[in-house]
Protein backbone atom coordinates (compact mmCIF):
# COMPACT_ATOMS: atom_id res chain seq x y z
CA UNK A 1 0.00 0.00 0.00
CA UNK A 2 2.77 2.42 0.95
CA UNK A 3 5.25 1.14 -1.58
CA UNK A 4 5.45 4.44 -3.41
CA UNK A 5 6.11 6.29 -0.18
CA UNK A 6 8.89 4.02 0.97
CA UNK A 7 11.66 6.58 1.39
CA UNK A 8 9.29 9.21 2.78
CA UNK A 9 7.88 6.76 5.26
CA UNK A 10 11.25 5.64 6.48
CA UNK A 11 12.33 9.22 7.05
CA UNK A 12 9.13 9.86 8.99
CA UNK A 13 9.84 6.81 11.10
CA UNK A 14 13.38 8.05 11.58
CA UNK A 15 12.13 11.35 12.88
CA UNK A 16 9.47 9.84 15.07
CA UNK A 17 11.39 6.98 16.59
CA UNK A 18 15.10 7.62 16.54
CA UNK A 19 17.14 4.75 17.95
CA UNK A 20 20.22 6.95 17.79
CA UNK A 21 19.33 10.45 18.90
CA UNK A 22 21.36 13.57 18.15
CA UNK A 23 22.85 12.29 14.97
CA UNK A 24 21.75 15.07 12.71
CA UNK A 25 19.10 15.47 10.06
CA UNK A 26 20.82 13.12 7.66
CA UNK A 27 20.14 10.01 9.81
CA UNK A 28 19.86 7.22 7.27
CA UNK A 29 17.93 4.06 7.92
CA UNK A 30 21.28 2.35 8.45
CA UNK A 31 22.02 4.74 11.31
CA UNK A 32 18.51 4.55 12.72
CA UNK A 33 18.63 0.77 12.81
CA UNK A 34 22.20 0.80 14.14
CA UNK A 35 23.54 -1.55 11.50
CA UNK A 36 27.02 -3.03 11.55
CA UNK A 37 28.71 -0.11 9.78
CA UNK A 38 27.16 2.92 8.08
CA UNK A 39 29.62 4.44 5.61
CA UNK A 40 27.27 7.39 5.05
CA UNK A 41 27.47 8.33 8.73
CA UNK A 42 31.25 8.24 8.59
CA UNK A 43 31.43 10.46 5.50
CA UNK A 44 28.93 12.94 6.98
CA UNK A 45 30.64 13.05 10.35
CA UNK A 46 34.26 12.90 9.30
CA UNK A 47 34.55 16.69 9.35
CA UNK A 48 32.56 17.54 12.48
CA UNK A 49 33.32 14.49 14.67
CA UNK A 50 36.03 12.07 13.58
CA UNK A 51 38.72 14.32 12.15
CA UNK A 52 38.86 16.71 15.15
CA UNK A 53 39.08 13.69 17.46
CA UNK A 54 41.83 12.12 15.35
CA UNK A 55 43.75 15.40 15.14
CA UNK A 56 43.48 15.87 18.91
CA UNK A 57 44.64 12.29 19.42
CA UNK A 58 47.71 12.79 17.21
CA UNK A 59 48.58 16.02 19.02
CA UNK A 60 48.24 14.43 22.47
CA UNK A 61 50.50 11.56 21.43
CA UNK A 62 53.09 13.70 19.64
CA UNK A 63 53.50 16.10 22.55
CA UNK A 64 53.68 13.25 25.09
CA UNK A 65 56.28 11.24 23.17
CA UNK A 66 58.27 14.40 22.35
CA UNK A 67 58.49 15.52 25.97
CA UNK A 68 58.97 11.95 27.17
CA UNK A 69 61.84 11.50 24.73
CA UNK A 70 63.66 14.64 25.87
CA UNK A 71 63.32 13.66 29.54
CA UNK A 72 64.33 10.05 28.89
CA UNK A 73 67.31 11.05 26.77
CA UNK A 74 68.54 13.36 29.51
CA UNK A 75 68.03 10.65 32.16
CA UNK A 76 69.69 7.98 30.03
CA UNK A 77 72.71 10.13 29.20
CA UNK A 78 73.14 10.93 32.89
CA UNK A 79 72.72 7.28 33.88
CA UNK A 80 75.17 6.28 31.15
CA UNK A 81 77.77 8.44 32.84
CA UNK A 82 76.76 7.85 36.48
CA UNK A 83 75.74 4.20 36.62
CA UNK A 84 74.15 4.38 40.07
CA UNK A 85 71.30 6.47 38.66
CA UNK A 86 69.94 3.56 36.63
CA UNK A 87 68.31 1.61 39.46
CA UNK A 88 66.35 4.44 41.09
CA UNK A 89 65.20 5.66 37.67
CA UNK A 90 64.02 2.17 36.74
CA UNK A 91 62.19 1.78 40.07
CA UNK A 92 60.36 5.11 39.80
CA UNK A 93 59.45 4.75 36.13
CA UNK A 94 58.29 1.15 36.69
CA UNK A 95 55.90 2.35 39.40
CA UNK A 96 54.57 5.07 37.08
CA UNK A 97 54.21 2.53 34.27
CA UNK A 98 52.32 0.09 36.52
CA UNK A 99 49.62 2.51 37.72
CA UNK A 100 46.54 1.93 35.52
CA UNK A 101 45.81 4.86 33.21
CA UNK A 102 42.30 5.50 34.46
CA UNK A 103 43.63 5.85 38.02
CA UNK A 104 46.68 7.94 37.11
CA UNK A 105 44.57 10.46 35.21
CA UNK A 106 42.30 10.94 38.25
CA UNK A 107 45.27 11.10 40.64
CA UNK A 108 46.64 13.98 38.57
CA UNK A 109 43.32 15.81 38.40
CA UNK A 110 43.46 16.50 42.15
CA UNK A 111 46.64 18.63 42.07
CA UNK A 112 46.64 19.75 38.41
CA UNK A 113 42.98 19.94 37.42
CA UNK A 114 40.96 18.27 34.65
CA UNK A 115 42.93 19.75 31.77
CA UNK A 116 45.44 19.01 29.04
CA UNK A 117 48.33 19.23 31.52
CA UNK A 118 47.06 16.29 33.59
CA UNK A 119 46.58 14.33 30.38
CA UNK A 120 50.07 15.06 29.11
CA UNK A 121 51.80 14.45 32.45
CA UNK A 122 50.17 11.01 32.65
CA UNK A 123 50.99 10.14 29.04
CA UNK A 124 54.60 11.34 29.40
CA UNK A 125 55.02 9.25 32.55
CA UNK A 126 54.08 6.12 30.59
CA UNK A 127 56.81 6.75 27.99
CA UNK A 128 59.68 7.12 30.48
CA UNK A 129 60.33 3.48 31.39
CA UNK A 130 60.22 2.34 27.76
CA UNK A 131 62.37 5.14 26.34
CA UNK A 132 64.88 5.30 29.20
CA UNK A 133 65.54 1.57 29.06
CA UNK A 134 65.91 1.48 25.31
CA UNK A 135 68.16 4.53 25.04
CA UNK A 136 70.40 3.23 27.82
CA UNK A 137 70.50 -0.26 26.26
CA UNK A 138 71.49 1.34 22.96
CA UNK A 139 74.25 3.45 24.50
CA UNK A 140 75.62 0.50 26.47
CA UNK A 141 75.63 -1.66 23.35
CA UNK A 142 78.31 0.44 21.67
CA UNK A 143 81.45 -1.74 21.54
CA UNK A 144 84.31 -0.40 23.62
CA UNK A 145 86.74 -0.81 20.69
CA UNK A 146 84.67 1.66 18.69
CA UNK A 147 84.85 4.18 21.52
CA UNK A 148 88.58 3.65 21.85
CA UNK A 149 88.96 4.22 18.13
CA UNK A 150 86.98 7.45 18.45
CA UNK A 151 89.22 8.55 21.28
CA UNK A 152 92.27 7.56 19.24
CA UNK A 153 91.04 9.76 16.41
CA UNK A 154 91.16 12.66 18.82
CA UNK A 155 87.45 13.03 19.46
CA UNK A 156 86.39 14.72 22.65
CA UNK A 157 83.88 12.98 24.89
CA UNK A 158 81.10 15.14 23.48
CA UNK A 159 82.11 14.45 19.89
CA UNK A 160 82.26 10.72 20.57
CA UNK A 161 78.77 10.90 22.02
CA UNK A 162 77.12 12.77 19.18
CA UNK A 163 79.09 11.25 16.28
CA UNK A 164 79.63 7.68 17.45
CA UNK A 165 77.56 6.57 20.44
CA UNK A 166 74.18 8.12 19.60
CA UNK A 167 74.21 7.06 15.92
CA UNK A 168 75.12 3.49 16.91
CA UNK A 169 72.38 3.50 19.54
CA UNK A 170 69.78 4.67 17.03
CA UNK A 171 68.24 1.26 16.26
CA UNK A 172 67.56 0.64 19.97
CA UNK A 173 66.33 4.21 20.43
CA UNK A 174 63.91 3.95 17.51
CA UNK A 175 62.76 0.55 18.79
CA UNK A 176 61.90 2.27 22.08
CA UNK A 177 60.16 5.10 20.27
CA UNK A 178 58.03 2.59 18.37
CA UNK A 179 56.87 0.91 21.58
CA UNK A 180 56.28 4.26 23.26
CA UNK A 181 54.32 5.76 20.36
CA UNK A 182 52.06 2.74 19.98
CA UNK A 183 51.47 2.52 23.75
CA UNK A 184 50.66 6.23 24.05
CA UNK A 185 48.27 6.17 21.08
CA UNK A 186 46.38 3.32 22.75
CA UNK A 187 46.35 5.05 26.16
CA UNK A 188 45.26 8.41 24.76
CA UNK A 189 41.77 6.98 24.20
CA UNK A 190 41.27 7.20 27.99
CA UNK A 191 42.17 10.91 28.10
CA UNK A 192 38.54 11.84 27.45
CA UNK A 193 37.71 10.94 31.07
CA UNK A 194 39.51 14.08 32.26
CA UNK A 195 39.93 16.25 29.16
CA UNK A 196 37.72 16.55 26.12
CA UNK A 197 40.13 15.38 23.43
CA UNK A 198 41.18 12.37 21.43
CA UNK A 199 39.41 9.41 19.88
CA UNK A 200 38.01 8.47 23.28
CA UNK A 201 35.49 11.30 22.85
CA UNK A 202 33.52 9.71 19.97
CA UNK A 203 33.91 6.26 21.57
CA UNK A 204 32.34 7.67 24.74
CA UNK A 205 29.52 9.32 22.76
CA UNK A 206 28.83 6.08 20.90
CA UNK A 207 28.75 4.06 24.14
CA UNK A 208 26.10 6.44 25.45
CA UNK A 209 24.00 5.95 22.31
CA UNK A 210 23.02 2.39 22.49
CA UNK A 211 25.98 1.69 21.74
CA UNK A 212 26.13 3.15 18.25
CA UNK A 213 28.20 0.56 16.39
CA UNK A 214 29.38 2.61 13.41
CA UNK A 215 30.97 5.25 15.60
CA UNK A 216 32.57 2.66 17.90
CA UNK A 217 34.13 0.85 14.97
CA UNK A 218 35.16 4.03 13.18
CA UNK A 219 36.76 5.67 16.22
CA UNK A 220 38.26 2.45 17.63
CA UNK A 221 39.51 1.47 14.19
CA UNK A 222 41.07 4.91 13.68
CA UNK A 223 42.98 4.55 16.96
CA UNK A 224 44.34 1.15 15.91
CA UNK A 225 45.16 2.37 12.38
CA UNK A 226 46.89 5.45 13.77
CA UNK A 227 49.10 3.27 15.98
CA UNK A 228 50.03 0.95 13.12
CA UNK A 229 50.71 3.87 10.75
CA UNK A 230 52.91 5.63 13.32
CA UNK A 231 54.79 2.37 13.84
CA UNK A 232 55.37 1.95 10.09
CA UNK A 233 56.54 5.58 9.78
CA UNK A 234 59.10 5.04 12.54
CA UNK A 235 60.43 1.91 10.80
CA UNK A 236 60.84 4.04 7.68
CA UNK A 237 62.57 6.78 9.67
CA UNK A 238 65.00 4.27 11.13
CA UNK A 239 65.86 2.94 7.66
CA UNK A 240 66.58 6.48 6.49
CA UNK A 241 68.67 7.33 9.54
CA UNK A 242 70.72 4.14 9.70
CA UNK A 243 71.62 3.17 6.14
CA UNK A 244 74.56 1.09 7.42
CA UNK A 245 72.30 -1.49 9.08
CA UNK A 246 70.73 -2.20 5.72
CA UNK A 247 74.13 -2.59 4.07
CA UNK A 248 75.04 -5.16 6.70
CA UNK A 249 71.81 -7.07 6.24
CA UNK A 250 72.27 -7.60 2.50
Amino acid at each position, binding site marked *: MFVGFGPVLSSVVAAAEPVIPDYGAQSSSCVVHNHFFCADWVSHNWGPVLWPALRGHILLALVAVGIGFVISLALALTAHRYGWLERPTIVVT*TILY*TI*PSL*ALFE*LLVAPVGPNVYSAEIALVSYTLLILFRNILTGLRGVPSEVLEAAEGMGMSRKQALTRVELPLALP*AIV*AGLRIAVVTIIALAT*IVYTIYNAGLGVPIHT*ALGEGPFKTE*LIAAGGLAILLALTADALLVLLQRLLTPWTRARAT
Partner: protein
Amino acid sequence: MHEFLEAFRFIAHNGAIAGEPGLPTLTHLALETLKVAAIGLGISIAIAVPLGVWLGHLHRGSFAAINLGNIGRALPSLAVLAIGDAFLGLGLTVVELALVVLAVPPIVTNAYLGVDGVDRDLVDAARGMGMSGSEIVTRVELPLAVAPLFAGIRTAAVFVVSTTTIASLAGFSGSLGDVIANETSYHFSGVLGAAICVAALALAVEGVLTLLQRALTPRGLRLVEPEPARVPPAEAALA
Protein backbone atom coordinates in the same frame (compact mmCIF):
# COMPACT_ATOMS: atom_id res chain seq x y z
CA MET B 1 45.52 18.53 49.00
CA HIS B 2 42.16 18.75 50.73
CA GLU B 3 40.82 16.36 48.06
CA PHE B 4 43.34 13.71 49.03
CA LEU B 5 42.24 13.92 52.67
CA GLU B 6 38.63 13.45 51.59
CA ALA B 7 39.70 10.56 49.37
CA PHE B 8 41.45 8.80 52.23
CA ARG B 9 38.36 9.34 54.38
CA PHE B 10 36.33 7.66 51.63
CA ILE B 11 38.76 4.71 51.67
CA ALA B 12 38.64 4.56 55.47
CA HIS B 13 34.85 4.33 55.29
CA ASN B 14 35.27 1.48 52.80
CA GLY B 15 33.40 3.34 50.09
CA ALA B 16 30.35 4.37 52.07
CA ILE B 17 28.76 7.67 50.99
CA ALA B 18 26.35 9.55 53.25
CA GLY B 19 22.86 9.54 51.74
CA GLU B 20 23.68 6.84 49.18
CA PRO B 21 22.81 3.51 50.79
CA GLY B 22 23.26 0.23 48.96
CA LEU B 23 26.57 1.09 47.32
CA PRO B 24 29.06 -1.80 47.25
CA THR B 25 32.02 -1.61 49.62
CA LEU B 26 35.50 -0.90 48.29
CA THR B 27 36.69 -4.28 49.56
CA HIS B 28 33.97 -5.99 47.55
CA LEU B 29 34.85 -4.02 44.41
CA ALA B 30 38.57 -4.66 44.87
CA LEU B 31 37.95 -8.41 45.20
CA GLU B 32 35.69 -8.34 42.13
CA THR B 33 38.40 -6.51 40.18
CA LEU B 34 40.96 -9.10 41.25
CA LYS B 35 38.61 -11.95 40.33
CA VAL B 36 37.87 -10.60 36.84
CA ALA B 37 41.55 -9.82 36.27
CA ALA B 38 42.75 -13.18 37.60
CA ILE B 39 40.40 -15.14 35.33
CA GLY B 40 41.56 -13.15 32.30
CA LEU B 41 45.23 -13.46 33.19
CA GLY B 42 44.85 -17.19 33.97
CA ILE B 43 43.25 -17.96 30.61
CA SER B 44 45.86 -15.84 28.83
CA ILE B 45 48.73 -17.63 30.55
CA ALA B 46 47.20 -21.01 29.75
CA ILE B 47 47.04 -20.07 26.06
CA ALA B 48 50.12 -17.91 25.62
CA VAL B 49 52.86 -19.60 27.66
CA PRO B 50 52.65 -23.00 25.92
CA LEU B 51 52.39 -21.29 22.53
CA GLY B 52 55.36 -18.97 23.10
CA VAL B 53 57.49 -21.66 24.70
CA TRP B 54 56.70 -24.10 21.91
CA LEU B 55 57.59 -21.58 19.18
CA GLY B 56 60.74 -20.60 21.06
CA HIS B 57 61.75 -24.23 21.54
CA LEU B 58 61.45 -24.84 17.79
CA HIS B 59 63.05 -21.44 17.02
CA ARG B 60 60.23 -20.91 14.59
CA GLY B 61 57.68 -18.21 13.88
CA SER B 62 59.80 -15.32 15.21
CA PHE B 63 58.09 -12.91 12.84
CA ALA B 64 54.62 -13.90 14.03
CA ALA B 65 55.56 -14.09 17.73
CA ILE B 66 57.25 -10.67 17.77
CA ASN B 67 54.73 -8.86 15.62
CA LEU B 68 51.86 -10.28 17.64
CA GLY B 69 53.32 -8.38 20.58
CA ASN B 70 53.59 -5.17 18.58
CA ILE B 71 50.04 -5.43 17.31
CA GLY B 72 48.75 -6.27 20.79
CA ARG B 73 50.25 -3.05 22.08
CA ALA B 74 48.45 -1.05 19.39
CA LEU B 75 44.99 -2.15 20.55
CA PRO B 76 43.43 0.45 22.88
CA SER B 77 41.64 -1.32 25.74
CA LEU B 78 38.64 0.95 25.45
CA ALA B 79 38.31 0.32 21.71
CA VAL B 80 38.51 -3.47 22.18
CA LEU B 81 35.89 -3.34 24.94
CA ALA B 82 33.67 -0.96 22.98
CA ILE B 83 33.75 -3.09 19.84
CA GLY B 84 33.06 -6.21 21.92
CA ASP B 85 30.15 -4.34 23.48
CA ALA B 86 28.78 -3.37 20.05
CA PHE B 87 28.65 -6.94 18.80
CA LEU B 88 28.11 -9.19 21.77
CA GLY B 89 26.88 -6.95 24.57
CA LEU B 90 29.14 -6.24 27.49
CA GLY B 91 28.93 -9.11 29.98
CA LEU B 92 31.65 -10.86 31.92
CA THR B 93 32.38 -13.09 28.90
CA VAL B 94 33.14 -10.17 26.59
CA VAL B 95 35.28 -8.45 29.22
CA GLU B 96 37.28 -11.66 29.71
CA LEU B 97 37.58 -12.00 25.94
CA ALA B 98 38.96 -8.47 25.72
CA LEU B 99 41.38 -9.19 28.56
CA VAL B 100 42.64 -12.29 26.77
CA VAL B 101 43.02 -10.41 23.47
CA LEU B 102 45.14 -7.79 25.24
CA ALA B 103 47.13 -10.11 27.54
CA VAL B 104 48.08 -12.95 25.18
CA PRO B 105 50.39 -10.96 22.84
CA PRO B 106 52.95 -9.73 25.42
CA ILE B 107 53.12 -13.17 27.07
CA VAL B 108 53.64 -14.99 23.75
CA THR B 109 56.30 -12.52 22.59
CA ASN B 110 58.28 -12.66 25.83
CA ALA B 111 57.98 -16.43 26.27
CA TYR B 112 59.18 -16.82 22.70
CA LEU B 113 62.10 -14.42 23.13
CA GLY B 114 63.06 -16.03 26.44
CA VAL B 115 63.13 -19.61 25.24
CA ASP B 116 64.52 -18.74 21.81
CA GLY B 117 67.33 -16.84 23.51
CA VAL B 118 68.51 -19.71 25.73
CA ASP B 119 72.17 -20.49 25.00
CA ARG B 120 72.18 -23.13 22.22
CA ASP B 121 75.29 -24.75 23.74
CA LEU B 122 73.33 -25.49 26.92
CA VAL B 123 70.53 -27.09 24.92
CA ASP B 124 73.06 -29.16 22.97
CA ALA B 125 74.70 -30.23 26.22
CA ALA B 126 71.30 -31.27 27.62
CA ARG B 127 70.60 -33.25 24.47
CA GLY B 128 74.04 -34.85 24.76
CA MET B 129 73.17 -35.88 28.32
CA GLY B 130 70.26 -37.80 26.84
CA MET B 131 67.40 -35.45 27.71
CA SER B 132 64.28 -35.71 25.59
CA GLY B 133 62.66 -32.67 23.96
CA SER B 134 60.15 -32.22 26.77
CA GLU B 135 62.85 -32.60 29.42
CA ILE B 136 64.90 -29.92 27.69
CA VAL B 137 61.90 -27.59 27.77
CA THR B 138 60.95 -28.17 31.40
CA ARG B 139 64.40 -28.60 32.96
CA VAL B 140 66.63 -26.33 30.89
CA GLU B 141 64.78 -23.82 28.74
CA LEU B 142 61.95 -22.85 31.09
CA PRO B 143 64.10 -22.28 34.19
CA LEU B 144 66.55 -20.20 32.14
CA ALA B 145 63.71 -18.18 30.59
CA VAL B 146 61.96 -17.31 33.87
CA ALA B 147 62.96 -13.63 33.76
CA PRO B 148 61.67 -12.79 30.25
CA LEU B 149 58.66 -15.08 30.75
CA PHE B 150 57.67 -13.14 33.86
CA ALA B 151 58.39 -9.83 32.18
CA GLY B 152 55.62 -10.75 29.75
CA ILE B 153 53.26 -11.98 32.45
CA ARG B 154 53.79 -8.82 34.50
CA THR B 155 53.16 -6.60 31.50
CA ALA B 156 50.00 -8.60 30.83
CA ALA B 157 48.94 -8.32 34.48
CA VAL B 158 49.24 -4.53 34.29
CA PHE B 159 47.13 -4.50 31.11
CA VAL B 160 44.55 -6.79 32.67
CA VAL B 161 44.07 -4.82 35.90
CA SER B 162 44.00 -1.58 33.94
CA THR B 163 41.51 -2.91 31.39
CA THR B 164 39.24 -4.35 34.08
CA THR B 165 38.82 -0.87 35.51
CA ILE B 166 38.38 0.63 32.04
CA ALA B 167 35.56 -1.88 31.42
CA SER B 168 33.44 0.25 33.75
CA LEU B 169 33.64 3.09 31.22
CA ALA B 170 32.09 0.79 28.64
CA GLY B 171 29.27 -0.06 31.03
CA PHE B 172 30.52 -3.24 32.69
CA SER B 173 29.76 -3.25 36.37
CA GLY B 174 31.86 -5.10 38.92
CA SER B 175 35.24 -3.46 39.44
CA LEU B 176 36.81 -0.48 41.18
CA GLY B 177 36.38 1.35 37.89
CA ASP B 178 32.65 1.58 38.70
CA VAL B 179 33.47 4.26 41.25
CA ILE B 180 35.69 6.20 38.84
CA ALA B 181 33.02 6.05 36.14
CA ASN B 182 30.30 7.28 38.49
CA GLU B 183 31.34 10.69 39.76
CA THR B 184 27.68 11.70 40.17
CA SER B 185 27.17 9.30 43.08
CA TYR B 186 30.66 9.23 44.51
CA HIS B 187 31.83 12.85 43.99
CA PHE B 188 35.42 13.60 43.15
CA SER B 189 36.69 12.43 46.55
CA GLY B 190 35.26 8.96 45.87
CA VAL B 191 36.72 8.89 42.37
CA LEU B 192 40.11 9.88 43.75
CA GLY B 193 39.85 7.30 46.55
CA ALA B 194 39.05 4.57 44.06
CA ALA B 195 41.93 5.71 41.85
CA ILE B 196 44.28 5.36 44.82
CA CYS B 197 42.92 1.84 45.43
CA VAL B 198 43.35 0.89 41.76
CA ALA B 199 46.94 2.13 41.76
CA ALA B 200 47.68 0.26 45.00
CA LEU B 201 46.06 -2.90 43.64
CA ALA B 202 48.12 -2.80 40.43
CA LEU B 203 51.35 -2.23 42.35
CA ALA B 204 50.45 -5.07 44.72
CA VAL B 205 49.82 -7.45 41.80
CA GLU B 206 53.15 -6.43 40.30
CA GLY B 207 54.84 -6.97 43.67
CA VAL B 208 53.35 -10.44 44.16
CA LEU B 209 54.39 -11.48 40.66
CA THR B 210 57.92 -10.19 41.28
CA LEU B 211 58.13 -12.29 44.46
CA LEU B 212 56.79 -15.31 42.58
CA GLN B 213 59.37 -14.77 39.86
CA ARG B 214 62.16 -14.61 42.43
CA ALA B 215 60.93 -17.85 44.00
CA LEU B 216 60.86 -19.59 40.63
CA THR B 217 64.28 -18.39 39.47
CA PRO B 218 66.87 -21.16 39.83
CA ARG B 219 69.29 -20.43 42.66
CA GLY B 220 72.30 -20.34 40.37
CA LEU B 221 70.73 -17.70 38.19
CA ARG B 222 69.85 -15.46 41.13
CA LEU B 223 73.56 -14.77 41.61
CA VAL B 224 74.22 -13.54 38.10
CA GLU B 225 70.85 -12.41 36.80
CA PRO B 226 70.60 -8.66 36.35
CA GLU B 227 67.35 -6.85 37.06
CA PRO B 228 64.66 -8.66 35.06
CA ALA B 229 63.50 -6.86 31.98
CA ARG B 230 60.23 -5.06 32.53
CA VAL B 231 59.51 -3.99 28.99
CA PRO B 232 60.37 -6.24 26.05
CA PRO B 233 64.01 -5.72 25.13
CA ALA B 234 64.99 -3.28 22.45
CA GLU B 235 65.55 -6.04 19.93
CA ALA B 236 61.94 -7.17 20.27
CA ALA B 237 60.64 -4.28 18.25
CA LEU B 238 63.50 -4.33 15.78
CA ALA B 239 62.29 -7.28 13.78
